[in-house]
Structures are given as structure tokens and as C-alpha cells.
């Protein structure tokens, strides 16, 4: 007989645990507990060692680590700062989110509520698979295929929206810029956000959708009344997961962007950089001290992603308490 039951509650777990402890039990529980502790130790080690190396690097940095527009740890004295990287990381992620979140919600709704059933299932499967495509392949495709395709769009944006300043293209050159990086990141995180959002939409209680239908709601009104309110926190946490990916993405950015250490709001001009891209690009030519400097920038990235993920977890945890269905 196979049934689903809720996970063991603490109560009946402790009832079971109260039997006499055998050596086999002690070894096995010790092993599994040890694994859990190993995980904690690894996490702690990551934080400690990165911080240690970062402190080594920053204490010899002759410039302000957070506000300097330059990366020259090999110089005498060493000068490096993360201002450009932080800016580029945030800008590219914001562009990616601005594109990916609405589109992902659209696709998730398409799969959960709009597509003919024959199309929905294979589509969901394909989106699942796409979430697994390695980022280097997105990068390769982006650099060779997407960049030339966006050239025309860039010129058009420059021509008609150049007055907005951010779309003003002041330097010539192919579209190896932050805007393209943002679009590529959007394409990459789209399947991730879509998958989570779709799951949440499918869990929206049928009975509330029927209630809306029976009141004479159109399909869109049903979604607005019974699906989106239920899925709101799911959408937010899915977006956060996507954001975490976009912030830490290395190879796709490294391959597409033609980097520079100039901070520019002209999104269509080549240049700029992100934390992860900078590490990948500078690593090979860096000496021991240069590596420490890169580790310091990696630590900042680590902290940022921790904050983003922490926020996502909190939202998910709150959602668990919120009971959509009243039984």
C-alpha cells in the first residue's frame, strides 16, 4: 500500500527514537550527523578563508577598495577597487530581471493556464531541460550569434531613445556591452524563474479559480483574482533565485562582454565588468597578490548572493505559514 503522508512529526519521531540504542544505530546516526556537521564546517571554512585572504589583500590596497575605478593589484603601490564591478553586476542583473521576470510569468501562465494541454506538457519538459543547459554554451551562442543580431537593435535604440542618456551610444563597436549581457542573462535565468513560477501557479487552488469563474470572470480576471495573489510570494522567491544566478554568472558574461574599468551609464557602449567576469578574465595573468585581490572581490559577490538568497528564503518561509486553502 502506497500512500502519501505528511513528513514525520516530531512527536512520533521521538517516540521511535526512545528505543534502546544499538551500536549499529549509534554508528549510522553518528555518520549522518557527521555529514551534516561536515557541511556546516565547509560553509564556515568558505567564509573564513575568503575573508582571511580578502583582508590580506585589502590591507595592502593603497586605494579605497569600494570606490576605486581601477584594477591594478600588480602596480606599485597596488591599486584596485570594486566600484565598476559592483555597478556592472547590479546593472546587468537589473536588466536581466526587468526582462526575464515578466516574460517568465507569461510563460508560466502559458504553461499552467493558457496552452492547449497537448502543448503544455512537452513545453514544461523542455523548459526543465533548458534550465540545465551549461552557461558556457549560452555564452558561446551569445557571443557568436546574439551579439550581431543585437547590433541593429542597438543602433535603433541609439537613434530614437538616445535622448534617455542610458541608450546613447557614444562609442562605436559591436554590441559587446552591458545591455547585451543583460539580455543574455535574462535568457539564461528565464527557464529557472519559469519553472518555479509554473509550479506555484499550478498549485493555485482550483476551487478559488472556479469561484471566480462562477462569478462571471474572464480568464484574465480569474488569474488576477485567484492565481496571481496566491502565487505572489512564489514569483518573488523565484525571481530572487534567478537574481542569484544572474549575479554570480561567470562564463557567459566573460565571453560576451568586452570589459573595461570605466564606469559608464551608457548601456550600449562596450565596457564595464562584473565580479565574476573580472575574476575569470584576470585570473590567469594575476600573481599571488593579484589572486588575493580577486578573492576579495569574490567575497563581496559571496556576501551579495547570500543576502539575495537569504531574502528569498525568508519569503518562501513566510509563504509556508500563509495557508491559501482554507480546509
Amino acid at each position, binding site marked *: *500500500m502506497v500512500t502519501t503522508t505528511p513528513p514525520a512529526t516530531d512527536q512520533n519521531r521521538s517516540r521511535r527514537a526512545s528505543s534502546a540504542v544499538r551500536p549499529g544505530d549509534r554508528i*549510522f546516526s553518528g555518520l549522518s550527523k557527521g555529514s551534516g556537521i561536515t557541511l556546516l564546517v565547509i560553509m564556515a571554512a568558505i567564509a573564513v578563508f*575568503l575573508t*582571511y585572504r580578502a583582508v590580506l589583500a585589502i590591507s595592502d590596497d593603497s586605494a579605497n577598495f569600494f570606490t576605486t575605478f581601477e584594477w591594478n593589484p600588480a602596480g606599485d603601490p597596488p591599486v584596485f577597487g570594486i566600484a565598476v564591478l559592483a555597478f556592472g553586476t547590479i546593472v546587468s542583473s537589473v536588466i536581466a530581471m526587468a526582462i526575464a521576470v515578466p*516574460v517568465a510569468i507569461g*510563460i508560466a501562465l502559458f504553461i499552467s493556464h493558457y496552452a492547449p494541454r497537448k502543448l503544455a506538457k512537452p513545453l514544461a519538459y523542455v523548459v526543465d531541460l533548458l534550465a540545465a543547459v551549461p552557461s*558556457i554554451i549560452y555564452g558561446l551562442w551569445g557571443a557568436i550569434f546574439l551579439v550581431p543580431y543585437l547590433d541593429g537593435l542597438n543602433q535603433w535604440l541609439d537613434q530614437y531613445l538616445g535622448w534617455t542618456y542610458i541608450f546613447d551610444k557614444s562609442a562605436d563597436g559591436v554590441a559587446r556591452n552591458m545591455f547585451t549581457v543583460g539580455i543574455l542573462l535574462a535568457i539564461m535565468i528565464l527557464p529557472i524563474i519559469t519553472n518555479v513560477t509554473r509550479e506555484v501557479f499550478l498549485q493555485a487552488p482550483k476551487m478559488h479559480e472556479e469561484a471566480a469563474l462562477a462569478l462571471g470572470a474572464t480568464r484574465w480576471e480569474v488569474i488576477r483574482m485567484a492565481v496571481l495573489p496566491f502565487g505572489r510570494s512564489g514569483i518573488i522567491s523565484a525571481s530572487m533565485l534567478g537574481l542569484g544566478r544572474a549575479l554570480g554568472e561567470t562564463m557567459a558574461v566573460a565571453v560576451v562582454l568586452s570589459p573595461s574599468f570605466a564606469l559608464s551609464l551608457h548601456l550600449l557602449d562596450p565596457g564595464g565588468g562584473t565580479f565574476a567576469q573580472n575574476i575569470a578574465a584576470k585570473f590567469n595573468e594575476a600573481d599571488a597578490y593579484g589572486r588575493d585581490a580577486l*578573492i576579495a572581490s569574490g567575497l563581496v559577490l559571496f556576501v551579495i548572493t547570500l543576502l539575495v538568497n537569504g531574502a528569498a528564503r525568508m519569503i518562501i518561509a513566510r509563504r509556508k505559514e500563509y495557508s491559501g486553502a482554507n480546509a
Partner: protein
Amino acid sequence: MSHAVQERPVALSKPRGPLSHARLPRWTPAAVAAGSIAAGIGIGLAAGWHSRTQWGMLAALLFVLVSYALTSKVEGARQAKDRVATSLVWVCFVLAVVPLLSLAWVTISKGIAVLDVYFLTHSMNGVLDAEAGGGVYHALLGTIEQVGIATLIAAPIGLLTAVYLVEYGKGRLAKAVTFFVDVMTGIPSIVAGLFVLSTWTLMLDFGPSGFAGAMALAILMMPVVVRSTEEMLKLVPNELREASLALGIPKWRTILKVVLPTAIGGITTGVMLAVARITGETAPVLLLVFGTKLINPNPFEGAQSSLPLYVYEQYQVGTDQSVARAWAAALVLIAFVMILNMVARGIARWKAPKTGR
């Protein structure tokens, strides 16, 4: 008649129209879509836009606007809103499908041009950048070894941690582990690479090796294994555990003989999906394994290559021949990952507990 009727207010809600009203024929969306695409192409050609992205965006915009205008004219405002939502959802679908299809198509068509048995069985030893030929054997070997070692490290730790969380864990330690598994899931791969770099390479002074890369990959893999295994173990019905314990079977044997075998399908799937995920990771490999043109079967000493790293290197070289090799390696990599994924999902479906849902 009872008082209820007398008390009844004069109809307060707005009078409504008849049940039927003019409706657009069922083929309208298709016709509007076709018209918009034609207009997009036409205007694009006439204005001389060379980027087809613009044609497509114009067509999408036209589609939504025309749908709205037509519906609000014929069917009314609410229906028009509904129609706009539907159109937008369809546009999103197309918008997403186009680049993703293009990605698949480009990788396959460009990759297949170079991919053959020779490519799979030879290294880059002595092959010049601008020369055709060479292959991915060394990279494939490196990937398999690194991913294999990473799995050997991460799978047992991840599995046992999940067992701990579901079967034993309570109190603050379990809470901390759960929390940090979540945190660990979000670690960017380059940060995992930097961590191993700072300890293994910089502090303990080891050179680049496949093993160093494998350790970073293992860090990325562990939380994924823990999460999926945990989910699967929670699905095992409590009655099974209780039935086994009631027979006087010790808890650890119950877990080994009853709980784990019941969940084994889902656990396998989770591990395979995790393997697929780390197979494509480039950043930590770039930092720790270094890359080489030669076959190095020993993951514990000397630089190795790996598939994603190979793709990156060949792209960076930038000659026509090397970029062609990059595409072929990308195809091998994507095939590798997709096969893992499909097999994993196949197992999940085949072994899925029949919940009768």
C-alpha cells in the same frame, strides 16, 4: 409571498445585457498574428532595418495592439483586457521560444559539422590553433574524472546529511544544517572555485589538478543532493517505517533496508540532475584545473582539461577552426548533460510513487 420578497431592494446592481453579444470569430487571433508578422516583415524591409529582432518586436507589438483594438470595438472592454492578457502570454511564449530554439539549432548545426569519431578520440596534442583537426578526448576524460570524483565526495555526504535531517535531525543543529544547505545552494560557482583556490592552492601549495576542480564541484553538488534526497525521503510513508520498527528491526536497518530502497528512484534522479548541473560548470575548473592540450589521465597531478573549459579556450583562441571545435565540444557537452537529464527524469517517472493523484 413571504416577507423576503417585500424586503427585497430594487435591483441595485447594474442591469446587464443579453447573454449573447457580437463575438470575434475563432480564427481572429491566428489571422491577427499572421497579419502582424506580415506587417512586421514588410515595414522592416521597407524601413531597411537589418536586424530581424526589430521585425519580430514590431510584429509582437502590432499583434497585441490590433487584438486589443478589434476586441474592444466588437466585444467590449472587459473582453479586450482578457484578450490583451492572452496575446501577451502568447507573445511571451514566442519571445522565449525563439532564442532558445535558436540556441539549440545553432549548437546542433554548427557542432555536427566537426563532430565525428576522430574528434571524440583524439586530444589537441600538437594541433595548431589555426589548424583543423584535433579533438576533445582529453577534455571528455577530464570531465568524467572530475565529475566522478566530485560525485564520490558529494553524493555520500549529501545523502547522509539528508538522512540526518529527515530521520534523526531535531533541534538547533538540524535547523542550522537546513539553513546553510539553503545558503550553499546559492553560492556562485566562481566563489566555490575561489574557496578551494584559497585553501588547496594558496595555503597548502598544491598545483592545479583535476582533484582540486572536483572539490569545488563537490561543494556545488552537495546542497543539490541534500535537497532532492530530503524531498524524496519525506515522501516515504511513515507507515512503512512504523511497520518495520514494529517488527523489531533496528532503526538504522529500517533506514537502509526500507526507507532508502523505497526512495531510491527519486534519490538517483536527484543525484543525476546534480551531476548534470556540475558537468557544465566552467568557472571553478578554469581556476583550479587550468587546462591542457594533452591527455592527462591522472586527476591528482598536473593540469587537466574539461569539456566546458575546452569550449571556452577554443572560443578565446578565435580562429575559424578553433571556434568550430568549440561548437563541436559544446554539442558534446550539451548532449552529455541532456542525456543525463532525460535518463534522470525517466527514472523519476518510472519509479515515482503512485500517489493516485
